[in-house]
């Protein structure tokens, strides 16, 4: 297995292939700043929960680093992400719409994000990836365990490359992405 490109994002740092990006904002505002300065023209971004925003901007930076983006449908690339908190931020947000029985208005737009694998779907939709998408929850960010789980994913004979790695978010201001593009 070979890692071709890597993107790291924390609330105050963005690193693409070892090089820090010059950005001024922090936390949730940082994600919006990355979107505006490096991506743009995808208003669905603003509808996403924090985990999806994080995964979306991180995968965009990763694929921009890969270059030659043509958005042609493909089935040979998988998206397999890992974290500790599943969809906790979205879960908490949805819970707030049903917590008070006097003010009980369950929000479908909040509920739809209460699954961690939605972010893998958002990345697949953006890039027209028909390949495998999967989300695995583990308690520790253990790179060896992640690599073990990614290496076996190549047993699917159609899978030639994977966007994989860690994508965690506990609330709107606290998150960490460490994702990479890897080949067999």
């Amino acid at each position, binding site marked *: 297995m070979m890692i071709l490109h890597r993107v790291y994002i924390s609330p105050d740092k963005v690193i693409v292939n070892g090089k820090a990006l010059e950005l001024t904002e922090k936390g949730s505002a940082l994600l919006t700043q990355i979107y505006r300065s490096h991506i743009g023209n995808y*208003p669905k971004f*603003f*509808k996403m929960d924090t985990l999806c925003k994080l995964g979306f901007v991180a995968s965009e930076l990763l694929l921009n680093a890969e270059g030659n983006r043509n958005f042609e449908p493909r089935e040979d690339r998988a998206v397999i992400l890992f974290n500790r908190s599943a969809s906790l931020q979205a879960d908490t947000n949805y819970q707030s719409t049903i917590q008070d029985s006097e003010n009980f*208005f*369950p*929000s*479908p*737009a909040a509920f*739809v994000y209460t699954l961690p694998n939605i972010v893998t779907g958002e990345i697949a939709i953006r890039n027209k990836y028909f390949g495998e998408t999967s989300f695995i929850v583990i308690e520790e960010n253990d790179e060896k365990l992640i690599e073990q789980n990614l290496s076996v994913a190549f047993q699917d004979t159609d899978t030639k490359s994977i966007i994989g790695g860690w994508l965690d978010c506990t609330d709107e201001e606290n998150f960490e992405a460490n994702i990479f593009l890897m080949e067999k």
Partner: protein
Amino acid sequence: MDELIYKLKQEIIEALNLEDMTPEDIDENASLFGEGLGLDSIDALELIVLMEKNYGIKLQDPNQGKEIFKSVKVMAEFIQQNRTK
């Protein structure tokens, strides 16, 4: 009516996170789905919640939404006729 239309536009922008839009950007006669604002099925469900929460209107059949959400103007007219708060 104009006041309700303006308020409704603000509420739609907030409820659906149409971040880069202002009420002035929304044509009250333009279609909310498909070509117009480009909303999707989840947005339609969220608009049903908005009508219940802000105007006390309960839509039992989500298919009713297809008629009501034709445009902001049609929606405002429906709200004016049916609101309970």
